[in-house]
């Protein structure tokens, strides 16, 4: 190498940007590997042909290649534009009789509700010309408020899914009772056959949790009529409710008041992500942390890297078998500080000083116990979810209940009266059912929205037992794993086509309004039961007399329910008010402490901690139990923590990976008992070294075209309803599956992007750790005489739940591109949530940051567009004009926030019918070759302004809500007018010391400001040189 070359190289090295490694998003970034460097340099150089040749024809990318095809459509034919513009002839077909409520071009919002078997939400659903197009939370609803979970929002696509069944079916079986053929059947034929079978007796119903009083009444009537049994089972059922029954005598999932707690200890309860009413929890948790002077502390003992763990102020990594030890250890630490019986003292004595055994700092553990004692009556201890389903699950729950009772939390922060009594599902019930089926006692089994063939482990023998049932009737809207094994599929409506009601917390009733008439020849499960009872002439009069389920629901409310909640109003006005508000009843805020009837002194640990590796199965925020796996929005939504899309994987710790020479994506074969499953490895910081964590909900075989071949079914690794702590072995297979994460994309190169501070830092100075830059102006600046839109995002309340991402996708018609194209950095999300790890690499903590177009005043994108397709509006918006864009992508190159998305293909053309009906008619679908990005929901801004104008009033703060803001359960995102000095956002910009701009030193002057994330962990952030926090 010549001298000159040498010099150039060293110059280049000197010029390298100084990286701050306090926050990192991937190991590649942390270590600044050559691969990472290379990926940075080629970030914008991707061409449609890159990677193509590599992938084409290879075995491993079968999935990837298929994704795109099947995802959004039937054909990948990218049509070339016709030569000259010719006017297409369009028809306008007016209504014959216009429905009163429809104004063409104006949306109506209806109250409804959503229940996924675990979480219940009050909803507002937007309807345009009679079809639902957007789902958001009902702000008035006492539980979730604004928040709508990603699943609830995405359930909209389920309505328009091409894979939905459109009529009833019958399966023909061969001698071995395996499916030979599926044939269509008429409702009359199905009803006759089913009723014949029902009349033979031995009727059983298997369903998931039922939260609707009316559905419960129908099932009750049906049971009375046919002398049937009802079994309730959910794949994600845990022992919380059962333990409540044994500890306090009432089977209830208590209402946890995270907003009233100062100290929250979670033992593998992912209450922010996947366990319990997550949106309600998010809202309450954020409420307890909004006031930074009196914010709560969250301590998490985490065996997977859960969303709750990621939000914890102090996070301990444990393995599942240690959960019970942790609780007993905590009890032993507080013995003497609160009064406990001698028997308990003796029982917990062996757990004294357990911290060392758990590999946790004893001092930190003592501090947790001390904080609990200090905040008696204002603390919460929770454990739950399938992550706690070890052999000791019940013991763990009883110990947790005891701890809450002695801390005086019961009745204050743990309110049974505000809990949900409808989550009665248990494995005991399905085991019972299987025993009955094996004994030949079940002649007809009706399965309603429960999929044991997919989500129940084989060792329980459901499949064999089912062969002994002469008639199996299945009511669901998919030909799923269980449906193909049923004799009759009485195709159910989609939830948005059915009337109903709900009771998600004792005394709080919600209405479930349909948004559309049944699109196909389907019938609700409830009406099916009613029809069969009517035909057989059995059961109470009310199940036989009504022709529709709506009549049944209304009658039930008129005759029974209204008396409880109508408060003396006449029924019609009560009913109308109910429909309008979406709910009735009040949520109990406090209760009285219940007497703890359990026995802690006899609790014994049966789970051994000897296994080298323990299995920890967990549901993810987006896929959950896998019911909605066929929805592209959910598959493409990055996992909240790992940010991986379109896959499940085996998470192992860094040390484990090093010891076993595993690299990201190496396929390992897991062996649990006799079951094997091959999965790619994901190296997860902050995981216990002896844990292998795998997400359930993937590997659906019969969910539809989107879910097919995505991941592996980890439910098969469960044993007898146990999901955690099972000994697991693994070996490398030598194969590799590329795991696709969005977190490697859009690197911000180590500048001041996220700012965190601790409570101690904040006590000293409210703007701790923010480095303010001296900036100067070379721009003349814009004049904003009318409105000037801005946004404030409080990182301190953002939990990373991702509801905003789905809301944005639904509102703005952003495309789903599939695994292969996400791999190439072509995801289309307008808002993303960056997850940064920070701290000790082995036990990293996490920070979330929602990021969308910053709508800079001095926008770098605007100055480089050669065709002026991105311009500045008089209201401070950075506007992207699709029809002017020629796709140079200069803007994207020049955007320091990396929020611009390019349409590599004509995604909208690939949307399979009738999925196009879910598109928001207010927002243009973008064509190929066009750049797009967040618009601050300009269509909503215009709608809000228009509305104010018509009502002849000035625009109020809060009139306009962007889709992300509207969906946010924690009110993290605030949008408003900066020129209105009383607006919430203007106040943040003007007076909030924690507020900072991203890349302030560039003087792009973004219209979005963030507020420091605070970790309430009593640490002090060490001072660093270089000025950057």
């Amino acid at each position, binding site marked *: 190498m010549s001298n000159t070359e040498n010099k150039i190289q060293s110059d280049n090295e000197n010029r390298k940007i100084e990286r701050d490694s306090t926050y990192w998003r991937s190991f590649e970034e942390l270590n600044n590997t050559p691969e990472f460097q290379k990926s940075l340099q080629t970030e914008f150089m991707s061409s449609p042909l890159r990677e193509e040749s590599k992938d084409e024809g290879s075995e491993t990318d079968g999935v990837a290649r298929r994704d795109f095809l099947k995802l959004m459509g039937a054909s990948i034919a990218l049509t070339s534009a016709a030569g000259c513009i010719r006017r297409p002839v369009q028809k306008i077909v007016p209504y*014959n009789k216009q429905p009163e409520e429809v104004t063409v071009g*104006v949306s109506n919002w209806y109250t409804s509700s959503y229940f996924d078997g675990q979480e219940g939400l009050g909803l507002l659903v937007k309807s345009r010309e009679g079809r639902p197009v957007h789902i958001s939370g009902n702000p008035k609803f006492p539980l979730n408020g604004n928040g709508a979970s990603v699943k609830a929002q995405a359930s909209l696509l389920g309505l328009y899914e091409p894979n939905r069944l459109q009529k009833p079916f019958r399966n023909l079986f061969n001698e071995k009772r395996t499916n030979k053929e599926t044939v269509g059947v008429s409702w009359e034929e199905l009803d006759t056959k089913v009723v014949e079978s029902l009349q033979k007796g031995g009727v059983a119903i298997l369903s998931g949790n039922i939260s609707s009083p009316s559905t419960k009444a129908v099932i009750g009537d049906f049971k009375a009529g046919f002398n049937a049994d009802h079994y309730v089972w959910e794949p994600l059922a845990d022992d919380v409710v059962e333990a409540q029954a044994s500890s306090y005598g009432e089977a209830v999932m208590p209402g946890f008041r995270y907003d009233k707690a100062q100290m929250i200890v979670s033992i593998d309860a992912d209450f922010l992500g996947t366990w319990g009413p997550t949106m309600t929890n998010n809202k309450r948790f954020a409420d307890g942390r909004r006031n930074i002077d009196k914010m709560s502390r969250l301590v998490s003992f985490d065996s997977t890297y859960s969303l709750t763990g990621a939000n914890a102020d102090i996070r301990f990594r444990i393995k599942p078998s240690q959960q019970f030890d942790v609780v007993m250890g905590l009890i032993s630490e507080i013995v003497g500080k609160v009064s406990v019986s001698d028997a308990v003292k003796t029982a917990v004595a062996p757990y004294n000083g357990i911290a060392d055994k758990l590999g946790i700092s004893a001092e930190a553990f003592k501090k947790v116990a001390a904080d609990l004692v200090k905040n008696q009556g204002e603390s919460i201890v929770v454990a739950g979810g399938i992550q706690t389903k070890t052999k000791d699950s019940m013991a763990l729950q009883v110990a947790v209940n005891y701890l809450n009772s002695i801390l005086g939390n019961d009745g204050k922060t743990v309110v049974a009266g505000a809990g949900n009594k409808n989550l009665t599902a248990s494995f005991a019930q399905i085991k019972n059912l299987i025993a009955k089926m094996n004994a030949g006692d079940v002649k007809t089994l009706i399965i309603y929205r429960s999929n044991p063939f997919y989500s129940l482990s084989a060792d329980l023998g459901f499949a064999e037992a089912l062969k002994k049932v002469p008639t199996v009737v299945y009511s669901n809207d998919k030909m799923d794993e269980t449906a193909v094994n049923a004799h009759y599929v009485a195709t159910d409506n989609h939830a948005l086509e059915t009337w109903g009601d709900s009771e998600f917390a004792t005394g709080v009733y919600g209405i479930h309004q349909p948004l559309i008439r049944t699109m196909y020849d389907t019938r609700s499960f409830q009406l099916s039961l009613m029809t069969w009872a009517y035909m057989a002439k059995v059961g109470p009069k009310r199940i036989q007399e009504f022709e529709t389920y709506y009549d049944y629901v209304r009658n039930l409310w008129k005759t029974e329910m209204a008396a409880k909640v109508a408060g003396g109003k006449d029924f019609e006005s009560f009913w109308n008010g109910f429909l309008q508000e979406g709910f009735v009843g009040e949520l109990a805020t406090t209760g009285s402490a219940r007497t703890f009837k359990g026995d802690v002194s006899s609790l014994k640990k049966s789970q051994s901690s000897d296994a080298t590796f323990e299995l920890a199965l967990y549901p993810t925020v987006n896929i959950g139990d896998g019911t909605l796996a066929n929805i592209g929005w959910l598959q493409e939504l990055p996992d909240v923590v790992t940010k991986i899309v379109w896959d499940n994987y085996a998470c192992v710790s860094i040390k484990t990976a090093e010891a076993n020479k595993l690299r990201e994506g190496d396929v390992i074969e897991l062996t649990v008992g006799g079951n094997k499953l091959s999965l790619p490895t994901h190296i997860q910081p902050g995981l216990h070294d002896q844990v292998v964590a795998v997400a359930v909900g993937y590997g659906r075989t019969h969910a539809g075209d989107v879910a097919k071949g995505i991941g592996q079914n980890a439910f098969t690794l469960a044993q007898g309803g146990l999901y955690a702590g099972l000994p697991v072995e693994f070996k490398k297979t030598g194969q590799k599956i590329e795991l696709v994460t969005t977190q490697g994309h859009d690197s911000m190169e180590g500048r001041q992007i996220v700012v965190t501070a601790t409570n101690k830092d904040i006590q000293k100075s409210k703007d701790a750790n923010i480095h303010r830059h001296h900036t100067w102006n070379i721009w003349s600046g814009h004049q904003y005489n009318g409105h000037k839109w801005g946004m404030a995002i409080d990182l301190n309340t953002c939990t990373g739940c991702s509801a905003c991402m789905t809301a944005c996708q639904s509102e703005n018609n952003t495309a789903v591109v599939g695994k292969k194209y996400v791999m190439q950095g072509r995801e289309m999300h307008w808002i993303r949530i960056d997850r940064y790890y920070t701290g000790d690499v082995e036990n990293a903590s996490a920070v979330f940051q929602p990021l969308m177009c910053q709508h800079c005043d001095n926008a770098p994108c605007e100055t480089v567009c050669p065709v002026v397709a991105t311009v500045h509006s*008089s209201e401070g918006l950075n506007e992207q004009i699709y029809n002017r864009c020629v796709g140079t992508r200069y803007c994207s190159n020049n955007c320091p926030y990396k929020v611009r998305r390019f349409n590599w293909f004509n995604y909208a053309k690939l949307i399979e019918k009738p999925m196009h009906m879910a598109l928001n008619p207010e927002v243009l679908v973008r064509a190929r070759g066009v750049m797009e990005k967040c618009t601050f929901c300009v269509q909503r801004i215009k709608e809000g302004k228009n509305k104010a104008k018509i009502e002849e009033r000035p625009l109020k703060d809060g009139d306009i809500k962007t889709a992300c803001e509207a969906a946010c359960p924690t009110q993290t995102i605030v949008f408003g007018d900066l020129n209105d000095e009383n607006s919430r956002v203007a106040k943040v910009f003007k007076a909030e010391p924690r507020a900072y701009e991203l890349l302030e030193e560039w003087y792009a002057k973004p219209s979005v400001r963030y507020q420091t994330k605070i970790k309430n962990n009593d640490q002090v952030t060490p001072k660093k040189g270089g000025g950057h926090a």
Partner: protein
Amino acid sequence: MLTKFCSTVCAAIGLSLTVFFLSGCLFQNPDGGERVGIGYNKGYAPEQPIAFSHELHVGTHKIQCQYCHNQVERSKSSNIPSLATCMNCHQQVAGKPGQETVPGHKDSDEIKKLRDAFSDGKSIEWVRVHMLPDHVSFNHQAHVGKGVSCQTCHGEIEKMAKVFQHSDLSMGWCVNCHRQPENKAPLNCTTCHQ
């Protein structure tokens, strides 16, 4: 050698064809003047399934625009009236025998089409006259609310026996009006493109 010659000829022909074609497009698309560019459709007057005459209804009978297009004040889209709205009058009005408001179309025949469709629960498939490209959104409510009369854009509709496109609906045509200071109209791109 021959191959090379052939390919050169082909290229030349191709090029000249392209130039010819493009120039054709350009010639048809002058800036300004009465001649209208391709795709603008000024003067477009398609045959409608019913020979409905605005001249008769608006001009002669003086029916207000918003009697039929009743949602124009409330919505960005102006609605084509439902058949029920037509039937408000045509329940009674069947058309005089033999009368032809629009030459070649017997009134009674045309009204019968309407009545039949209504009683069958069907609709009429009107051919859309005013059509903006997909990337443009126009808000009737905002314009009507500001007092812009229908005729400003749609022309003398009360004299149209058959509706035709009066304005070229080009972007320049929109912006010309928006630019007038007295109109106080917004000029942001997202006003129309979103």
